[in-house]
């Protein structure tokens, strides 16, 4: 069996319209992969955007140890950004996906995010005044490949993640990581 150590940090979110954000992250993988140690999902604290940099800093650590029996189902990082208002209401403002790099070492990944687009003008105004937004009814719509063009979305900001990847026993099993 080969092993993969994922050590890193969820750094910050940038270019979001909403000021107060928190991020829910998860690492998803196929049935050939298994968690040995660590958590494959987590949530950051809420952070307020700084006016000068327009970034919400999270600084959430990621520490995960995976084992695999095959290269199919390569791990993917999934992020969901939520906005928080002063009434403690929260709603999703960004969904993003990215594959984990296939090379060992330090990587800085920028995950682009999108949110569900509001169909009516009233909902757009409501979103503008930070009192709510739309979410998906089923979570697998976010990454399902079936008739995906029917899902109307709007581009949101991006999330930066810094990862250090350590691969073990991949070369012994004939896997070349380009």
């Amino acid at each position, binding site marked *: *069996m*080969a*092993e993969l150590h994922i050590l890193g940090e969820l750094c910050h979110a940038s*270019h979001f319209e909403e000021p107060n954000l928190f991020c829910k992250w*998860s690492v*998803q*993988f*196929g*049935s*050939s992969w*298994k968690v*040995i140690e660590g958590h*494959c*999902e987590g949530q950051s604290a809420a952070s307020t955007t700084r006016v000068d940099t327009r970034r919400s800093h999270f600084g959430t650590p990621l520490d995960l140890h995976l*084992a*695999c*029996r*095959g*290269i*199919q189902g*390569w791990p*993917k990082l999934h992020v969901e950004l939520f906005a928080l208002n002063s009434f403690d209401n929260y709603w999703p403002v960004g*969904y*993003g*996906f*990215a*594959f984990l*790099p*296939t090379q060992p070492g330090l990587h800085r990944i*920028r*995950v*682009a*995010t*999108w949110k569900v687009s509001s169909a009516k003008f009233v909902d757009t105004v409501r979103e503008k005044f930070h009192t709510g937004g739309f979410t998906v*009814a089923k*979570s*697998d719509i976010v*990454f*399902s*490949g*079936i*008739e*995906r*063009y*029917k*899902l*109307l*979305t*709007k*581009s*949101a900001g*991006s999330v930066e993640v810094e990862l250090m990847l350590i691969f073990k026993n991949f*070369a*012994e*099993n*004939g*896997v*070349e*990581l*380009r």
Partner: protein
Amino acid sequence: MGRMMDPDIIVIEISEIRPPKKQTENEEVQLNISWQEKVFSQYEIDYYGVKNNCITDLQKNYHHIIKSTGLSEQRKNDKIFTYTTADNYSPDEEIFDMAKQATRQRIDQDENAFESMYIMADLDSEVLLFSLRWDPTEKLLLIYPDFNCMKINPYYKEIQGDSRQMYHFGIKNLSRKGQFTGSKETVQIQDNLINKLMRLTLREELSKDHFSYPNNHQLQFLVLLEIKSGVGFSYDHTHVRFKIDLPIEAKITDGFIDGSTHSSKQTNGTWQYAHCHEICFEIPENHDIDVVETTLTCLKIANNNNFYDKLEAFLVGGRREINLEEFFGSKENSLLNRYGSSTERSGELDIKCQVVQQHRPQIIQLAGGLNAKKHGKFRANVITIEELLSSYQRARERLEDIVNLKY
């Protein structure tokens, strides 16, 4: 309808008529199954429901169960069914081998000593979801794949039928934990011991070779395509449709060659897709795959430049209908004349394509030459008669596929 005149008069409430609940396409099925519990599929109900089809004692027993419980008179709604030890079901070889490897089964152990159960799904064809094996000598229940949580990391299955369907499934442990009465220190010592034993078991599993390899003289490629974002398009609400062109000798083991992103509305001149697509295939050893560039320039095929086409493009949109694969690709037999067609630059796509290549470990020793380390566990690369015959058979099948494709 009443109105409030004084406190003694009650307003009559009109009952609200709610529309009937629409049956959504996304159905969720949850089933609690006990060990060796037989759950019939619709095909089994129809087959064993007819008395003439039942010859063996087991089939007659199933017929009796179906008739006594009235299963044949109603349509089965859920898709999950089971095969027990008595059914003598033999699953697909690859999954079975992986399950056996995962269970560290000894070679000399008798297959008949195990009790097995298979959780299946009726998705236009029988699909094996989970395999469970009970080893009475070791007192072990072995489940492949492992327990998971539907909300966090469900397993996925995409089925290509008349339309592409995505199913996600999970298995949860509903066994009651034994009640233990003891002091806090005893419970803590017990938990520490269980954690240490689990870590030791995992390390033992990790030290053994259970990795899946491609076939002999084949290379396995895993392509991870990520469509991140786009800039510079003329229209809003754009989505990207893509198709991966593989060599004709490639055999796809997992994934699809085409796909589509969601429709995206631009913000600050950027369309963000964040779409991930994975495909795994095997090809003969003499091929190589290059990594794709990270920025793709897109071209738009202009219309015939007359007034009505320009007006239509401005008001409605659209493009001239052509076969895009032949226009941008190569046509084998004849030269394609593109004279008179004009294109204009439409935008740029930011994509990332990662490739993971895998081959059988013996080949690394050959490439390393005299300095290659000799691993005792890998045998020398000696081609046996069986391997030669199986290579010949594979090459013949590939040739027949190519010939069938042409005709």
